[in-house]
């Protein structure tokens, strides 16, 4: 049973078995409300060093938006994102990397995609060659190194996107559905890359719709519903005995149509 390190929805802390890992980043009342629409609504979230946080929730719940807010790609309309106790800035972003829901491949070869990511961080020469080699090998893309990245299959593109993110040696890695629409073998390849990264001490924040994956890779789960964080806790606990109606309905595969004023009443199946 992993350490509980997240606030529960009622604001209390789950008793940790040992001292929690140090805080890496925090969302404090983060909201994103373009034209008043609360797409991400008043989210408080702690992300601790070396932990793997899984973000779940139905389509359009605001998972990708939350991730972009945490990564600093969009600015919250209210609230703040804190990195190591300070407001998130460009240097903090350099310690993070993100794999997008739809991988963005430059119009270049596989190897040039990797080289570019390293070059913009000022990494060149022998060090860059070494890291590119390592990334190609880890992602098993060696044979495809010279191919245009955009002709790769979906699974290969996801592997490249992940390898490119990891080559930048981030402290925290955001993954937005990195295995959506991949076959079991590709999924396993990606999961292994994530596991290796975690073993090296990289903190992981990952969005997935796959319960099995959440169980395999997650220490903690944050469940989003209609832009709000309705449940957080240790992965096993949230998956076995979800306390919120939205999470329970979602995990049972039911449609949760309840309005937010009564998040604990689940609809009749």
């Amino acid at each position: 049973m992993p350490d509980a390190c997240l606030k529960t929805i009622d604001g209390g802390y789950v008793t940790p078995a040992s001292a929690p890992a140090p805080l890496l980043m925090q969302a404090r009342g983060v909201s994103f409300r373009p034209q008043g629409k609360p797409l991400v609504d008043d989210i408080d979230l702690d992300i601790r060093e070396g932990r793997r946080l899984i973000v779940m929730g139905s389509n359009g719940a605001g998972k990708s938006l939350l991730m972009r807010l945490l990564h600093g790609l969009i600015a919250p309309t209210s609230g703040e994102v804190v990195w190591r106790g300070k407001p998130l800035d460009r240097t903090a972003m350099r310690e993070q990397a993100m794999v997008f829901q739809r991988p963005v491949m430059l119009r270049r070869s596989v190897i040039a995609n990797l080289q570019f990511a390293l070059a913009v961080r000022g990494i060149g020469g022998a060090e860059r060659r070494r890291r590119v080699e390592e990334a190609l090998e880890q992602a098993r893309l060696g044979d495809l190194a010279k191919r245009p990245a955009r002709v790769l299959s979906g699974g290969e593109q996801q592997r490249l996107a992940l390898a490119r993110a990891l080559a930048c040696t981030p402290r925290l890695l955001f993954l937005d559905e990195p295995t959506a629409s991949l076959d079991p073998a590709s999924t396993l390849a990606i999961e292994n890359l994530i596991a290796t990264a975690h073993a090296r001490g990289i903190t992981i924040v990952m969005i997935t719709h796959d319960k099995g994956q959440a169980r395999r890779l997650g220490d903690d789960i944050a469940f989003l519903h209609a832009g709000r964080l309705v449940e957080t806790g240790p992965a096993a606990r949230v998956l076995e005995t979800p306390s919120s109606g939205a999470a329970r309905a979602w995990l049972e595969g039911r449609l949760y149509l309840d309005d937010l004023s009564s998040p604990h009443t689940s609809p009749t199946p």
Partner: protein
Amino acid sequence: MQDFATTLWNAVGLILLGDADLIEIIALSLRVTLSAVVIACLIGLPLGALVGAFRFPGRGVVTVLLNALMGLPPVVVGLVVYLMLSAAGPLGPLRLLYTPTAMIIAQTILVTPIVAALTRQVIEDLHSEYAEQFASLGVGPLDRVAALLWDARYSLLTVALAGFGRAVAEVGAVIIVGGNINHVTRVMTTTIALETSKGNLELALALGVVLLAIAVIVNAAVMALRASAVRSAYA
């Protein structure tokens, strides 16, 4: 007056025999137009890329301006350049009027907005796809412009070819500032205009055929580029 078939036959003969006047005129045309396109690209590519890749106050105005300048009437450009370069004009002392340099200047003014405006569009579209990935990777402003220009290279080559096509077929501006002087500033379009009015239809038609061939080649090149870019998913 000979019939059209005979004229065409004689015109083709001029081309095949490599008529010296013809070659000289074609060479000057290409020199003027290629120089103008190269200079227009040196200015228009970075300018278009900057407007396409960055948000700044007045950006909308610049975009509208560039698009409007794309349609500059050549004779007006010719007139303005003429006024600048004429003896009484501010650049008169340079004595550039009725030289190939004057023609290059006029064509550069015509082509630069075309290259810049089309580049702006291409780069803006590409940037909307790359923006978040670049922000995530921490790509700085210079790297951003360079990477966008490089990744749009196929589209931008077709932009340059579009500029070339416009310039090589242009007559109004070059005739005003070049003066259509034999062996000095006579290019394909201005020669066609002059020789037709003089009744020397063979030379006019020969140049017309060459101009048409250039247009076909340019368009074929654009299509071939597109096709090869699509094949490697670089389009």
